[in-house]
């Protein structure tokens, strides 16, 4: 499983890709907890919980789908972190 950071996030964390060290398959929320532990600059310090940050500060997509926090991610999947932009 590879996590790919969109350019806004790669600038913040200092790398473009990362392989989470947790056991797979894993839920997205577990992967994000690992990422925020390894890369504290990934999160916005104003929100306490990942559940608050997800959707406000980043979204994750994999295989052309927007992921939910409860979705299971398998070893062969690539997860991309993108800005949660919407509206207009």
């Amino acid at each position: 499983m590879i996590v790919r950071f969109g350019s806004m996030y790669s600038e913040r964390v200092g790398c473009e890709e990362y392989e989470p060290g947790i056991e797979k398959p894993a839920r997205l929320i577990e992967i994000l907890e690992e990422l925020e532990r390894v890369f504290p600059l990934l999160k916005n310090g104003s929100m306490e919980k990942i559940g608050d940050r997800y959707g406000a500060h980043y979204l994750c997509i994999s295989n052309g789908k927007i992921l939910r926090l409860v979705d299971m991610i398998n070893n062969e999947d690539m997860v991309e972190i993108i800005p949660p932009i919407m509206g207009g």
Partner: protein
Amino acid sequence: MKGGCRGRILRIDLSNGRVWEQLLDEELCRKYIGGSGIGARFLYDMTDGDTNPLGSENPLIFMTGPFAGTPVPTSGRHHITAKSPLTGIYGEGDVGGSWGVGLKACGYDGIIIEGKSQKPVYILVQESGAGILDAGFLWGRDTYQTDEMLKGVHGNKTTVSCIGPAGEKQIKIAAVMHDGSHARAVGRTGLGAVMGSKKLKAVVVSGGSYIPVFQQERLKHSIRKIVPTIVEKTAGMKQFGTAAGTVGAEKIGDFPLKNWSGSVWDRVENISGQRMKDTILTRRYFCTGCVIGCGREVEVKKGPYAMKGAGPEYETLGTLGGLCLVDDLEAIAYGGELCNRYGLDTISAGSAIAFAMELYEKGIIGTGDTDGLQLKWGSAGAMVEMIHQIGRGEGLGRLLGSGVREAARCIGGNAVDYAIHSKGLEFPAHDPRAFNSLALGYATSNRGACHLQGASYFFEKTAVMPELGIPGPKDRFRVEEQGEFQKNCQDLMCLMDSLKLCKFTLYGGLRTTHVREWLEYVVGWDMGLEELMTAGERIFNLKRMYNVKCGITRSDDTIPERMLKQPRTEGGAKGNLPPLDKMLDEYYTARGWDKNGVPLQATVGRLGLAW
């Protein structure tokens, strides 16, 4: 000017059929940039607080930006300005599509249309000039039909700006539509009704002239550096449209629910960008010159909501969907198409329907008022039927089409408690209880409740602008430092609206340095950051001065009680209420206005303005 701007606009008086050209001097263009800025200057000079928005003296001003028709990405947008019949104050709207480039290719930066025709007409603009033509054969047609028919007459390379039956009937939430079934809309503030009041059905542009650029190679080099970043950072929008973050919006308490009385909604996934991609999406749509491609083309192949054309944007999903608790994506797509064809603002239409649903729930109106229609929350059928009524000006729809403020006033009692608007403009699909800065933005936006006049929430999600003191995302619930922040955002958005660049490029990493480079390479203007931001500040203050002349005071710089006193009870914005009064005092100080929100003479003078 060495490129970009054509230096002339078309003037048309429909009362006497006169068509003439007016030159634009460089000083004016540099001070007001284009688009919204030049529109503001003309509206301020041509009208005042007593001008009847549906009278012959209210001009309808179409204006492009300095980059239209050049390689600058997303620069094909244009602006429409007039006094709003919905709000009675400053009215304007921004739109993408291809019309702006078409006008520039005819040799004009803009068109100002005054007066009223006695009978339905349309305007044809070509490189050889412009003419006023009979529109009897178009009157009564919807906007898709109008586009097809005019292309049938003038060729497929023409681009059409038109109104539908709603604008013809001068319904106050009528929109001006562009590009046929691609349905690019100037939705807000009822400018379609202004066009209808002039019996002007359409403005057709058909040109192919080259737009000169001062330093072509330097421009191309500059653009090549930023475009890959814009494309990469907005990839979510290309994949899932403006609805990419719909589910996320519900999670953080931003998504509108049940006329703004709801807190959470477990059905939002049914109307998400993901669901659209998985079910009805057929392809993406790119405005002319765009590299992002957020537009959707959809098809519902069968059933009562069968349609094919422009797909619903986030705002439409929010207002025809969440605001009415309708979770039927096909019904929302169909409802959106109806609004497009009638020529209605989907935000105002959805807001008016949700308002009516709440009144129905509370027993303030009943089936006697709705011709038997049960206006229940979540009823897709009721939502669709109400759009028909609003678009045709029939039944309860006739009242709702005047906007929630006027409808509440006519209904009386405590209907006003459920009319969610600022200065008469219904709320877009972002909750100011989820972003404190939006509360201040809605309250002080010059056209009424608008999330894009400041777009402050962009910088509380992911966008940054270090040169304006925004190095990283800001805390959306902060109370401090909102005044200067909002001012900077609004001045920047005035620039974007005047340059006619898409604001989504801000998510893509656009900076003022890019804008300054493009102004130099396209037009030949060497503008420093201070001159650029001063232009934005000048434009914003000019609009405020106009509104002061229309009678706006501090008491109008507010948002409804529901937003100030009733917090969401669950979800990502649970418990938050924006402290508007405190933020407003700080904002007025940052703006250089007095405690009543009137620009001080020192501010007016500094910006080169005059009452």
